[in-house]
């Protein structure tokens, strides 16, 4: 390096840029709610304010912290009751997160989370929410807008939660994110529209003369069409309004055949697994949660009592169900995202276990069971993170009459320039291998190396583009 060759940068020789690096972060539910070390991966605390989820048993030094899950409500929630278990903790959790993420109104009161992010309106507040705080290791500088998606299992059965999936995304947030949060930018999390379904379990053959009425939702999402079926004897007919009680699956196969010939054949999708028939509405929306009038003996609907009526469940509209705070790396989800049953309406939500409905959990349990129930229903989370890389680019210009000599000790041999091969008449020549960036006090700050030496002589000029990332 020719340490005597200094050249000052002009303003035009210097420019700045910002590059966004991303990482795709998949968080498969098997890490947290599946069969793989699920218990050891989730760390509980005696204070029960939150649970921490790791990608490996958390006692191992190899484990990375992935996210925390917490639950909170405010005093307007149907689940708030001053005497319910850990009510003050849940209230404190909601308030503390709300003041950080939603901020304060003009009177100094903490604002409640608002479904559409418009805090000037009332009536669309999220007052019973789950908080998912992602690790800074995964979020880096921020979550990439428009990249967040989460699949939650919403099937009624606790043991098979992923029979119905609610996909929640921040789609279109890239252009429509909100900025009215003290924690930075946030996007609205929307759930996809869902189709209603019902399952019939033929534990034994129904009785001749039993009837069932199934109602299908039409394409307009409002009107419905019904079809009734009567049970006939063994070897009886199977057509648009009746089916024989015998055959495969205790008459289940004949029921499927009858549905295919009925007026609602195009409005529903029917599958059979042994003696279980699942009917799914073709069209999405909450109007698909129609009533099923049945007195089929030995046949239960959605796990209910045999010979009792039931309803289609899980039909829902696309709607906002939460926020994703990009810089903070926190997702806020209203509890009703876990099922069609609106928690705000005061009916049991669909988290928990088979013995305990979730309203009971939220009102009468500490936070740990609630958080467990939520973690149990995570099928998948996916987002892209962002790292901002700021760069300054220096254009190092070597004019034709500059940098043609070197003070490198090996440059001269017997007072002759080595690279000229003793040809005295040849013009001076050097080979640039390194660029040094110096401070105003001539202190060496950074060194840039070329991949190969560049020949420099009076017949050529070089512009070396040096990028400094930080």
């Amino acid at each position, binding site marked *: 390096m020719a340490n005597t060759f200094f050249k000052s940068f002009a303003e035009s020789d210097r420019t700045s840029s910002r590059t966004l690096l991303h990482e795709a972060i*998949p968080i498969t539910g098997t890490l947290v709610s599946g069969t793989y070390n699920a218990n050891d991966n989730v760390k509980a605390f005696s204070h029960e304010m939150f649970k921490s989820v790791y*990608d490996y048993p958390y006692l191992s030094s190899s484990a990375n912290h992935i996210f925390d899950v917490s639950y909170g409500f405010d005093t307007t929630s149907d689940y708030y009751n001053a005497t319910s278990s850990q009510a003050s903790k849940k209230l404190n959790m909601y308030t503390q997160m709300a003041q950080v993420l939603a901020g304060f109104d003009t009177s100094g009161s903490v604002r409640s989370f608002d479904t559409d992010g418009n805090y000037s309106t009332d009536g669309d507040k999220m007052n019973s929410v789950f908080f998912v705080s992602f690790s800074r290791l995964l979020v880096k500088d921020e979550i990439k807008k428009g990249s967040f998606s989460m699949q939650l299992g919403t099937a009624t059965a606790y043991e098979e939660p992923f029979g119905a999936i609610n996909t929640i995304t921040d789609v279109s947030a890239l252009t429509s994110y909100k900025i009215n949060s003290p924690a930075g930018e946030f996007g609205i999390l929307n759930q996809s529209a869902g189709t209603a379904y019902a399952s019939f379990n033929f534990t034994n053959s129904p009785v001749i003369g039993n009837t069932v009425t199934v109602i299908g939702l039409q394409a307009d999402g409002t009107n419905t069409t019904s079809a009734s079926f009567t049970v006939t004897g063994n070897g009886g007919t199977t057509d648009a309004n009746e089916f024989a009680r015998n055959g495969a699956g205790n008459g289940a196969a004949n029921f499927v055949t009858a549905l295919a010939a009925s007026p609602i054949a195009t409005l529903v999708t029917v599958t059979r697994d042994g003696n279980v028939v699942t009917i799914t509405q073709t069209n999405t929306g909450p109007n698909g949660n129609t009533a099923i009038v049945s007195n089929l003996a030995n046949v239960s609907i959605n796990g209910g009592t045999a010979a009792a009526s039931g309803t289609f469940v899980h039909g829902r509209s696309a709607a906002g169900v939460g926020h994703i705070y990009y810089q903070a790396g926190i997702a806020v989800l209203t509890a009703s995202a876990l099922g069609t049953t609106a928690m705000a309406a005061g009916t049991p939500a669909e988290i928990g276990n088979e013995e305990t409905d979730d309203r009971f959990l939220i009102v009468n349990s500490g936070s740990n069971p609630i958080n467990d129930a939520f973690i149990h229903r995570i099928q998948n989370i996916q987002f892209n993170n962002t790292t901002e890389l700021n760069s300054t680019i220096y254009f190092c210009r070597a004019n034709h009459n500059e940098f043609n000599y070197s003070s490198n000790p090996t440059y001269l041999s017997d007072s002759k320039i080595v690279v000229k091969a003793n040809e005295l008449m040849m013009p001076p020549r050097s080979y640039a291998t390194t660029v040094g960036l110096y401070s105003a006090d001539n202190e060496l700050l950074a060194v840039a190396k070329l991949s190969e030496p560049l020949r420099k002589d009076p017949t050529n000029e070089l512009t070396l583009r040096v990028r400094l990332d930080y």
Partner: protein
Amino acid sequence: MSLKRFEPQDLIYNTLVAKPSYNFTIHSGSVYKNDEVLTDGDFSNKIKHVSDGDVSLHELNVNRPADSLVYGFIEKGTTRYAYRTISTSQFDDASQFQYGNVLTQSYPAKASISRIYVKSGPEIDDRTFANIETPTAAASNKKYIRALKNVINSRELLGQSFTYNDLGTKEVNLICIPGIFYGSKIDKGSIELNHYITGTLAAQLKDTNNDGVLYESVGPQSGSIAGMALYEQGIMVLTGSWSLGTGYTDQFFSAASVAPSWLSFGTGISTVGTAVDSRSVVASSYAVNFKGTNKIPTLTMMAFAEKGEHNFSNNPSFLELKSTTATTGSQSYSQSGRKIKNIVKSPYTHQSASFHNITYISKVGIYDENKNLIAIATLANPVKKTPNRDYLIKMRLDF
């Protein structure tokens, strides 16, 4: 809280030097680091998604299914940022990457020791007008030894007996250690290369004189120079070509069996450049032992709470709880006074002890010259501070 400036005698700058010890064992194509066999994960792979002997650089992917690994990506833009796996010519090739295209980088990034075998032969390509019809090319992997010419020759200034000379044309075996293992340089005198034949130590190299020259300390030519170590670069240059086994041969370089030598040392380590056509070698095993040098700059700060200082707190609970109704006038605003809470405990029941100034120091904040809080030291237990007690709190900041 009050601010107090550090005096020059309160700040001590030190450098801690750590010397982590590493042991790589190579046998039958497998490399083990510090005798560690990596744990199997739950998804038919290792939990860190690297092989034995590798170190995962960021450990973002831990125990994940193969189709759910974290990976990095970037859009090709005018800032010309790309991952190192994409060369400049590939980046510039619009048929491979157009502006706006996504460039991906699979994780985990990993590092492990590697081997470069350089055959004997011409050091550089010979392409002149004289032999334009029959130019000769340099032997394989010569670029790696050529790149070390200046480094090796610069050690001559230190009076070492190992110089480049004809190294460019000789057969050379390079054992390369990534910098993540050794830090700033390999610790001088710590290198030990062992060659075992059927489990018995047949030969050993050591940098006995701490000068980088590797002497055979065990083996048929004990005391001979068999190579050199480049401490700062983490490279061991092995040249000893004599046989290390009595009558023992193996397929170190091809299907033809030859006697082991320092040139075949490390067979089984993943190779860089043109690979060595070695076959299954099970009778020979190797150990590469060394220590690194990791320098940790350390700043020790002495915070001195003198007598009569730091006896007040801005903590809200420091004052007695009292309704603070302010009186306002047309030109004035005044708050009513509040007393400092008396926390002196009386030894007697039903008796209040007389007031003393007492604070409890629980944290020390470090501020820069612009009074930005840049670090906090928290005490394990708060210490009781009275006007007639002084404390010296010693804090250490590692970089």
